[in-house]
């Protein structure tokens, strides 16, 4: 262990490489290879992140939209409105009452006022309080002390507003005079403004303005101008006056705007059908105007112009707050979304007919594709001789599977136009039957491919055994092969139907989106298939095109959630079937 041994020792052999140890070069090559691996991982991560963002974007917006703020109001069927002559109310008279002025302004607005009063809410007082509070705040922030005391001691907000306005005008006149050349006039105007402020009760502000008048005399107009502008009295007075004028300005329409009264038609029909309701009351939940949703959920604070729900003012918001505190406004699950018909208005829009329409179309697809798809696959797989025709059919199926779905829509539109020319008119436009047929033609290749795979999976020994004991070819297929292939066929069919469920473009072209007035369908056996229908994807499309951003980003996503859940349920069913019945030969 001396230094000598180091210098004297022979050098170790240079390339004593173990097989288990990588040389530098090999290491470099492996490192280069790792890059490919990491790129692959990164690609998959990116795609999964995208999937996550997609689902998050749908669920975070769609789930809250399934809850709705509703006002529980006592609807009072006022005989005075239903028959303005004061006599007995008949069904004809009710039908004659205008929906807008009679039911919306009359029944709904009056009922709403009654409900609030019964809950102990002083409507006018609440509105006035909100505006007076606003005015006080403005005065305080403008440095006009003593504001709340002045407002409280005033007899009427309107008179006070006038007084404030005069003071503001005096200040404006002073400001104008300061911009001019004449110091005497400016001092005069400032003195007048100071007096006006004192008259309105703002002693401190009056003194301030008087001191500015002194400045104007001593240091010149410019300095006084700057000092006056710095106070901000003028703007504060005008704003406070504006707010005070609103305090007396409550109208029935302000209250009515809070709720959405478009189900007035339903209400009218209800009274027509049950005249006993006249003069009576019934409690019911009415949706709140959709613009208020963001305020109620706390997304908009309601302070300042930018935070105000569009179309509302602080008086109405005060009423909303009072209603919420009194328990009139509540947040409920929106069951009506699943039963209502589609509407432009997000407060009452629903997907009832769309769910039915989609179900009917899936029924058509199921019958049609099981019948024709399975029959075609059986022929091609079990019977068809290998000839030109069979090849041609195979090529056709392969190509149809890759034809863009919109081309099938074009086919549907052409069928529609042709049948229209044949005397069917417009009666077949937008029906569940036409939609189902177009979707079936589109899904047929998918189902044929799946069914053929299932038939192929049945081992030939089964066929040989059946033929061997004397079954005919048809008997072999229908009695032995088909039952064994059934789970596979069913799985393929369900997956094909799931695909058809989300298909939108072909349905748009055959008029399922213009039938926006479509109602709930009757049973498929009594002609429901031949009625104007809607479907889930087309309603999603309509909701996504709504001009109201709340609907576009909320309800459209809720409808997507419903559609995706249906899709996942179908796929889950297919997977379960496969797990349960799958046989390995």
């Amino acid at each position, binding site marked *: 262990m001396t230094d000598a041994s180091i210098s004297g020792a022979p050098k170790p052999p240079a390339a004593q490489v173990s097989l288990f140890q990588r040389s530098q070069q090999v290491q470099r090559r492996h490192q280069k290879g790792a890059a490919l691996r990491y*790129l692959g991982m990164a*690609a998959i991560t990116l795609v999964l992140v995208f999937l996550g963002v*997609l689902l998050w974007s749908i669920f975070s917006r769609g789930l809250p939209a399934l809850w709705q703020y509703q006002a529980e109001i006592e609807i009072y069927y006022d005989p005075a409105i239903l028959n303005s002559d004061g006599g007995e109310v008949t069904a004809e008279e009710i039908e004659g009452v205008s929906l807008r002025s009679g039911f919306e302004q009359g029944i709904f607005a009056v009922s709403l006022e009654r409900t609030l009063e019964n809950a102990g809410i002083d409507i006018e007082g609440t509105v006035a309080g909100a505006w007076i509070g606003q005015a006080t705040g403005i005065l305080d922030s403008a440095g006009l002390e003593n504001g709340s005391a002045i407002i409280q001691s005033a007899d009427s907000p309107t008179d006070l507003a006038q007084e404030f306005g005069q003071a503001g005008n005096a200040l404006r006149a002073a400001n104008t005079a300061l911009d001019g050349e004449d110091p005497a006039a400016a001092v005069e105007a400032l003195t007048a403004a100071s007096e006006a402020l004192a008259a309105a009760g703002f002693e401190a502000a009056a003194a301030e303005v008087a001191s500015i008048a002194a400045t104007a005399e001593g240091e010149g107009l410019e300095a006084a101008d700057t000092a006056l502008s710095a106070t901000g009295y003028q703007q504060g007075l005008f704003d406070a006056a504006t707010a005070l004028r609103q305090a007396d300005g409550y109208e029935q329409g302000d209250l009515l705007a809070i709720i959405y009264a478009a189900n007035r038609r339903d209400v009218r029909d209800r009274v027509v059908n049950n005249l006993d309701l006249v003069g009576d009351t019934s409690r019911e939940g009415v949706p709140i105007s959709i613009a208020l949703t963001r305020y109620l959920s706390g997304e908009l604070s309601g302070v300042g112009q930018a935070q105000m729900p569009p179309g509302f003012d602080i008086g109405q918001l005060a009423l909303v707050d009072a209603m919420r505190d009194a328990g009139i406004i509540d947040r409920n699950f929106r069951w009506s979304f699943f039963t209502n018909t589609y509407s432009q208005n997000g407060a009452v829009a629903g997907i009832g007919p769309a769910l039915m329409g989609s179900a009917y179309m899936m029924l058509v697809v199921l019958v049609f594709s099981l019948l*024709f798809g399975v029959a075609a696959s059986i022929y091609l797989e079990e019977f068809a001789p290998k000839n030109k025709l069979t090849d041609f059919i195979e090529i056709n199926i392969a190509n149809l599977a*890759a034809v863009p779905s919109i081309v099938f829509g074009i086919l549907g539109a*052409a069928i529609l136009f042709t049948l229209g020319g*044949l005397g069917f008119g417009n009666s077949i436009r937008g029906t569940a039957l036409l939609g189902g047929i177009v979707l079936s033609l589109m899904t047929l290749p998918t189902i044929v491919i799946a069914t053929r795979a299932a038939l192929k999976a049945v081992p030939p020994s089964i066929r040989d055994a059946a033929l061997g004991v004397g079954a*005919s070819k048809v008997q072999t297929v229908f009695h032995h092969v088909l039952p064994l292939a059934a789970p596979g066929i069913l799985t393929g069919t369900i997956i094909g139907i799931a695909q058809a469920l989300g298909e*939108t473009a072909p349905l748009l*072209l055959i008029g399922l989106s213009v039938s926006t007035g479509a109602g709930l369908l009757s049973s498929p056996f009594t002609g429901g298939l031949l009625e104007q229908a809607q479907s889930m994807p087309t309603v999603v499309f309509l909701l996504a095109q709504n001009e109201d951003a709340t609907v576009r980003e909320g309800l459209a996503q809720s409808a997507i959630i419903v559609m995706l859940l249906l899709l996942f349920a179908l796929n889950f069913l297919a997977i379960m079937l496969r797990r349960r019945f799958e046989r390995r030969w």
Partner: protein
Amino acid sequence: MTALLTLPSVLVIVLVLAAVGFFLGRRRALAASGGTPSTLHSLPRQHGWHVALATAVPALILIVFWSFLAGLVSNIYIDAIIPDDQPELRLPLEQRAGLTEREIEIRVQGRRDLFISNVQALAGAIDRYVANGNATEEEVQRWRADLAPLQQRLQRDGQIVSTAVTQGSLNRALELRRFNAIVAVTGPLAALAMAVIGFAVSLLVISRDFRARISVERWTRGFLVFASTMAILTTIAILSAITLPSLTFFREYGLFDFLTGLTWAPAGDVTGVPAGRNGEYQSELGFLPLIWGTLYIAFVALLVAVPLGLLAAIYLSEFATKGVRAWVKPALEILAGVPTIVYGIFALVTIGPFLQAIVGTTIMPNTVSVMTAGVVMGMMLVPFVSSLSDDVINAVPQAMRDGSLGLGATPAETVTQVVLPAALPGIVGAIVLAASRAIGETMIVVLAAGALSNVTGIEPNPFGAVVTVTTRIVAVLTGEGSGFDSIDVLAVFALAFTLFFITLGLNLLAQRMVAKYREQYE
């Protein structure tokens, strides 16, 4: 009696007859065997089926055809009985002023179509009027147009008669009704007769040696063959649906103008150019802006989908552990199973605003743009590309990998220098298929590329809105328009025509590539 002779009731009668036939046939076969069923050629059940099929099938086929033909025949009839000198068709002299022969012809044809639809509407209204029990057939036959305001009477019953009833239209409507009544009865009658004949004959032929099974199996095979021709029928239907209107369009607008036009401005849109006669809006239907938008978006989509899809496929098939595969593959399948409209809305409400926030509103004035649609479509295509490439990569024989590894190549070198070159034709095929899907994709583009924008020309900015082939098809055909009545609608069929052949070409190319590739290793 005539009430029974409608198609639905005949349908029920036929089905009941077939069911009865099944039991009668079985009974008769058993009787024919003389107590020993084993002496029959076919099982009694098969005899029963034979009777049922012979009863129902020809009648059902006839009913299906008749329900379509009746309308057609009635249309031909009404067109035939209206003479060219029908007074209602004459074009007033003052309207003829300054028009060419061709324009007069078009207007006269328009009046004729209108007259025909009026007559048909009137006939329908009278039908319902009678059905509601307001008049008997004899009374109707004596009707004259001036007879107590006919129109009001029909309208009071809730019938819609929009135009004034003239003596001419009333006469034609009555003629049409007589004809329709005959047609309406003949079809069901014929179907019923066929069912009864089939029923009787098939029952009569039952004997000990009758080969009912062979016969039933022939029916079955016939149905199987028919079902398998559905694919051909669908293709033929699509081809004729898009070809005939397209040819009309090319003839009227000009194929060259269509293919080389730089502006897409249909008169039906707000973007139309008032260049026609008398300041009418005239359509300018150039194909180039549309194909530009379509290919632009498809290009962006492939730029996203191909690298991501390929890398994911390579990782999954060559590097990933079983556990990773078990989780990632279903996730990719979810992505593939999401309907395209969901992607479209996602692009509209999430990706669009996000991109706009990044690049700013000067470059990207709207949230809809080529990039918005392209990126989302690319993400949609990733599972498509990756699963196709995965199949292709897995089809490369293991021996090639083993050989490469045995020679000392690292796994990554094996992938890049052996597996990928071997799989290249298949991968290119997958990319071509993805391109075909990108070109035909509709809902993402409609929602996220600016379907409602006023773009008429070629837009080079990747953050600007564009028009594409599919969005124009949706825009025109989603409205209330029905019938091949305007050049705009015809143009849409020409678009579908080009779209169909572009995608068909790409699909055939891809199939050929994949097939060749597979042959190589089998």
